[in-house]
């Protein structure tokens, strides 16, 4: 029992060294086996140690420990000599290391042989002299002795004292100096340091590698067939050899064929060394390259914008926004916010990694493959060069430039003005219900009529010897005698304006029911009573005819044709009831209503006091009408089109498509082939009627409604006036050469009128002889712009 514990203690010692599960420790026998060689090694080792340590201060201690070590060994061996366990160990050793542990555990093995015993005994005898008192406490927890001054008892029962411990520093210093330090192991059981021999270390190494610890142990011995020998009488098995041993394997053949096929087909290839790069001269000769014919034109991606100063790591100071500015960025819309805020770093090493690098690169990738590419012409031009080259304005003089006279007196917005043919007088109508006549050059108000209703339109007779003004106010058109001119002229005028009222009423009863010619006693003129509001009055150039437009009466023959007679009658009656006419009149109207006439535009003859409807079909709402300056042609401007009628042939010649939403005014060039149309969107269309039915030019000049457009009678000028309180004056030259397009040059913007109730300039007219422009504003003023 005692012996066994000793062996195990040694085991423990080893285990504690290695701190790893190792196969069972080598038995002592091992030592004895390799005794000779080991001893010699040990001796030399010890010598070296002693030599080393003689010089050091602790040499004695070490010597002691080595002594004690050898002692312990000798003691062990000594004990082995007596015990059967060791022998059995020794015998086991020769067989296999693996069984050793079991054997150690099972005490009293039966296989012990004397021979071994003797050998062991002899050996242990030889070392018996060196036996020193050893610890005999047995396999008890060492913890029990922790607080005791001794570690245990020797064989004679004496206490073995604990050795003096060096303090940690000392031992460390000693260890540092000691080259054998790494071989030293502390044996707690015996309270001593043990220096492992070379062989022991070898063994430890082998254990660590999971090999058999003994160097002479052969883990793979040749197989010895114990069951076969030459003189054996019977075979081990009497079974006949199976057939498969004689024929080649079918499966193997199949596999081989599979491989062969695989290799032939190239599905199985043998691993070749990997090729790093398979780059080669790709563009060997691109000289003889022909452009690819079949493909679509390739548009290379645009290059990224190159960085400016603000992206620098150290930009000039003025590129860095202040903190306030950066804060103000937060108030901006996200898309307006600058994407990159310049920063400044004082040295290159302080530049941090740019956090959006990956993101920006990714965005670029997206652009590259998701954006449709379109080749756009990049206009790197001066914006001014886009504008057409206009002739010098000075060459186009004279034209109205500055305000010369203001005519004040009206108490409401001046809705309309008209200049007498000689250019000496001007008539104006206002929304306050008055019509005034002014002397142009002095600004004196000559005469004034109280109409009582807001005046829509005022027009002088175009003949210079007939001083009659046509005034439209509400449902009436008044023909007023201005009283100008000499007596002879006055006589003629009075004759003209003389009206036989009962006769007239008869006539209306028969023929012209929509208009009645009445004598107006109050103003000493003629009153033409219409069915609806009359917005404009236009004289024919000969001064005998004039046309009136009632835009609100939009009923036309087209309606009639689509409606039944009864419904039409009802409709008419309902409409006419509002105009307080006698009921018999209705019947007449319905009778005289022919299929091809329009009632919103009427033409009146002054000399015969006759009114007649236009014998034309009219689509849409009539806005304005005008006569051709030289021929018997009549223009009616509806909201979207301009219709041109020949009055003699009584048929439509042309239809001009304005493309506007709502036309508001029309003017014909004195030549007669060109006309302009102003619209409520502020657009001005110039038509060249010889050219096409589409506008030759559309000028978007006013932001608000155009109220009137007008041509000058002799100068190549035209003007437009609008609710935005401006009047534009243009140069509009029409050449007699048909191949030459009219020249249009904007000349001047005339300002000066004030806005009132959202309305600006309501009317504008040129002086018949001078290049002067009169404008009538909603601010109760009339202004005259002259060319100087």
């Amino acid at each position, binding site marked *: 029992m005692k012996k066994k514990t000793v062996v195990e203690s040694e085991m423990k010692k080893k285990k504690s060294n290695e701190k790893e599960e190792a196969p069972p420790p080598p038995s002592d026998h091992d030592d004895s086996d390799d005794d000779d060689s080991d001893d010699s090694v040990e001796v030399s080792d010890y010598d070296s140690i002693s030599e080393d340590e003689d010089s050091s201060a602790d040499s004695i201690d070490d010597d002691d420990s080595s002594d004690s070590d050898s002692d312990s060994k000798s003691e062990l061996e000594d004990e082995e000599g007596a015990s059967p366990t060791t022998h059995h160990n020794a015998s086991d050793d020769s067989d296999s290391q693996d069984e050793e542990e079991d054997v150690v555990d099972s005490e009293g093995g039966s296989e012990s042989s004397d021979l071994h015993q003797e050998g062991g005994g002899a050996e242990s005898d030889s070392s018996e002299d060196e036996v020193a008192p050893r610890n005999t406490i047995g396999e008890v927890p060492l913890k029990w002795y922790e607080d005791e001054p001794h570690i245990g008892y020797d064989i004679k029962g004496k206490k073995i004292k604990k050795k003096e411990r060096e303090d940690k520093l000392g031992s460390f210093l000693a260890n540092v100096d000691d080259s054998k330090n790494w071989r030293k192991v502390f044996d707690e059981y015996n309270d001593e340091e043990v220096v492992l021999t070379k062989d022991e270390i070898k063994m430890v190494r082998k254990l660590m590698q999971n090999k058999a610890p003994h160097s002479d142990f052969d883990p793979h011995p040749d197989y010895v067939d114990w069951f076969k020998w030459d003189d054996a009488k019977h075979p081990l098995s009497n079974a006949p050899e199976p057939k498969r041993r004689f024929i080649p394997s079918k499966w193997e053949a199949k596999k081989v064929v599979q491989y062969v096929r695989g290799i032939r087909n190239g599905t199985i290839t043998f691993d070749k060394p990997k090729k790093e*790069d398979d780059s080669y*001269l790709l*563009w060997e000769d691109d000289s003889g390259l022909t452009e690819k014919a079949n493909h679509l034109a390739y548009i290379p991606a645009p290059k990224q914008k190159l960085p400016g100063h603000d992206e620098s*790591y150290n930009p000039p100071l003025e590129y860095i926004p202040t903190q306030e500015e950066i804060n103000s960025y937060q108030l901006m819309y996200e898309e307006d916010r600058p994407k990159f805020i310049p920063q400044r770093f004082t040295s*290159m090493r302080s530049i941090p990694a740019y*956090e959006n690098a990956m*993101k920006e690169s*990714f965005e670029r990738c997206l652009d590259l493959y998701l954006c449709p590419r379109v080749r756009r012409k990049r206009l790197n031009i001066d914006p001014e060069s886009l504008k057409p080259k*206009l002739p010098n304005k000075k060459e186009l003089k004279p034209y109205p430039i500055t305000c010369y006279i203001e005519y004040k007196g009206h108490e409401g917005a001046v809705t309309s003005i008209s200049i007498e043919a000689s250019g000496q007088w001007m008539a104006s109508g206002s929304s306050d219900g008055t019509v005034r006549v002014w002397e142009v050059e002095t600004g004196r108000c000559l005469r004034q009529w109280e109409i009582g209703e807001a005046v829509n339109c005022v027009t002088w007779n175009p003949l210079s010897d007939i001083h009659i003004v046509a005034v439209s106010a509400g449902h009436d058109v008044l023909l007023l005698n201005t009283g100008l001119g000499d007596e002879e002229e006055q006589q003629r005028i009075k004759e003209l304006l003389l009206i036989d009222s009962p006769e007239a009423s008869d006539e209306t009863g028969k023929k012209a029911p929509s208009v009645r010619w009445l004598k107006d006693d109050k103003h000493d003129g003629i009153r033409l009573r219409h069915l609806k509001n009359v917005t404009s009055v236009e004289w024919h150039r000969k001064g005998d005819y004039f046309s009136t437009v009632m835009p609100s009466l939009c009923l036309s023959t087209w309606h009639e044709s689509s409606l039944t007679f009864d419904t039409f009658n009802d409709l008419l009656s309902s409409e006419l009831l509002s105009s307080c006419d006698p009921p018999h009149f209705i019947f007449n109207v319905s009778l005289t209503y022919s299929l091809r006439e329009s009632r919103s535009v009427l033409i009146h003859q002054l000399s015969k006091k006759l009114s007649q409807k236009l014998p034309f079909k009219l689509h849409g709402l009539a806005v304005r009408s005008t006569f051709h300056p030289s021929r018997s042609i009549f223009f009616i401007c509806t909201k979207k089109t301009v219709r041109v009628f020949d009055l003699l042939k009584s048929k439509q010649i042309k239809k001009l498509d304005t493309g506007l939403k709502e036309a508001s005014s029309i003017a014909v060039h004195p030549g007669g082939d060109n006309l302009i149309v102003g619209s409520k969107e502020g657009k001005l269309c110039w038509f060249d009627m010889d050219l096409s039915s589409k506008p030759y030019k559309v000028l978007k000049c006013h932001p608000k409604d155009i109220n009137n457009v007008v041509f000058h009678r002799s100068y190549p000028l035209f003007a437009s006036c609008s609710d935005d309180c401006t009047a534009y004056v243009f140069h509009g030259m029409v050449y007699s050469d048909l191949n030459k397009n009219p020249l249009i040059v*904007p000349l001047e913007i005339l300002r000066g009128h004030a806005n009132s109730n959202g309305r600006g300039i309501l009317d504008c007219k040129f002086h018949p002889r001078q290049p002067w422009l009169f404008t009538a504003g909603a601010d109760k003023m009339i202004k005259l712009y002259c060319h100087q």
Partner: protein
Amino acid sequence: MVAKHYRPAGKKKEGNAAKFVTRTQALKQLQISLPLFRKLCILKGVTPREPKKKFKGNDKTYYHVKDISFLHHEPLVEIHRAIRVHERKIKKAEAKKNVERANRLREKTPKPKIDRIIRQRYPRFVDALGELDDCLTMVHLFAAVPATESKKIDVELVHKCRRLAHEWQAFVSRTHKLRKTFVSVKGIYYQAEVEGQKITWLTPHSLQQVVSEDVDIPTMLNFLQLYEPLLCFVNFHLYHSINLKYPPMLDPRLEALAADIYALSRYLNGNTRPAILNSETSQLVESEQLESKQDGAQTQNEKSELRLAQLQHQLPSNEPGALMQLVEKVAGEGEEEYDQETRECKNLFRNVKIFLSREAPRESLLFVIPAFGGTVSWEGEGAPFAESDQSITHQIVDRESQGHRFLSREYVQPQWVFDCVNARIILPTDNYFVGRIPPPHLSPFVDYDEGAYVPEYAKTLKHLQAAARKEVLPLPGAEKDLEDPQNLLAEGIIDRAAANEAAEKKQKLMKQEQRFREELKKELKGETYTSAGSAVEKETSTAVIETGESTNNVQANTDDGAEMGKLLLSRRKRKLLEAMQISNERKKNKHDTIIKRKKKLDEAQNQRS
């Protein structure tokens, strides 16, 4: 009622409907998945088109029919189908635990080849160079990206990108094709001119990039799949053009020292020497090559080896004898083949020997300085010459340190190099001394068109350039004395004096310029030009007040004129004009804010002084 776009049966489609297909239609036609379609589009360079009439709605993407049929005949589609089949087989093998077969299959996965596509996309080499910008930027970015397994960024890929980038840089550096550099917050921009093509690329700062979450890495990898071989072929072509074997063999030791570019340039220099000058150098070169070949073979052992190499440089290596050899300038070598600008670039740093301290951005400086003919070394392993070398003229330092200072050299900040390069002259170093805040770093890509704001330092640089052009002749004589520190010092003083003079001149010039500008402004305002000059500034200002009313009128008139010009324009042109005016307005606003800030700054400075 017949449908609006009714097409009778059997009649072919016409117009846009016949020419374009939507993306969904295209996918159906090609019978491929959307990711694959995207990939094909990226590789083949097929982009959506903008039909005049979007017949299926505005929210659709349209492709041209021809483009789609172009993709239809693409062998890549077949290869990708094969890859898919292969992946299925691998999956099956793995499910059956047949690891060997799975591995074999994995190795045999067909790999799409891009070379044909590259040739198709860029029929001429110049075409490829023309579109190299994005390629280079991307490759340089991925050279700095951390390899992450989860995002499928391979270590190999990153290494390859790094290698390609360095090869490109080495070529540019060797042939002195670099023209402009710009250190921005986003990274460093370089512009090179190769075969008449201006190629600009951005390299991130030598810090690792962060791969943010909102970036779709697979898309970028698709691009990289095209860019990587493209750059490879371009590099091959370029190396071939200067008679070099393409995949260059490098000294792995230098590579490990993160001085790949230096290793490459050494390789280039070593191998392009036309005739062997003396046996010694040739032997050296040979031995180097041998060595590098051996090492090259080693590097084939993939990542682990590379990692080891990288680890190596942390360990002190005891290898004696620096393999380094100075980048020797072979005088008069092929000088004629360079054009004027290249020659200028080549000789910029000819007599400058620069040493980089530890904190200086080594990688970019090692690229830039040799590109402009300079000699450069750095602190650390494998450097061609040590810090103590007496012939060093400049030392690049980014942080003020207490180390030994050599009187014979100037200690400057790295910005000096970049500014010199952009200005094409050797700038006086006073402003760039260590510890000072260097003058602003200006972008060389800005063209100052008329009326644009010109920073003050740009003007200074311009004057310096002008001065240098005049003094080109005396410079070479001065260079002989470079070795003598005393002379150098004296020279420095002279230089400084000259610089001061130049600065004074510049100030005078600027004053004159300002005066001229003011006068111009006055003229514009409609004032009569006073020949008395600017001495009567006060008078003129009062005149302005007096004539204020009239000028107002005049201004209104000019406005009218502008408006009148617009009247006659067609609507399209008018809109264009308005857009132009808006953009001009915006530009002007920007310009004005900068000027305002400048004014404020100047005022603040004046108050301080």
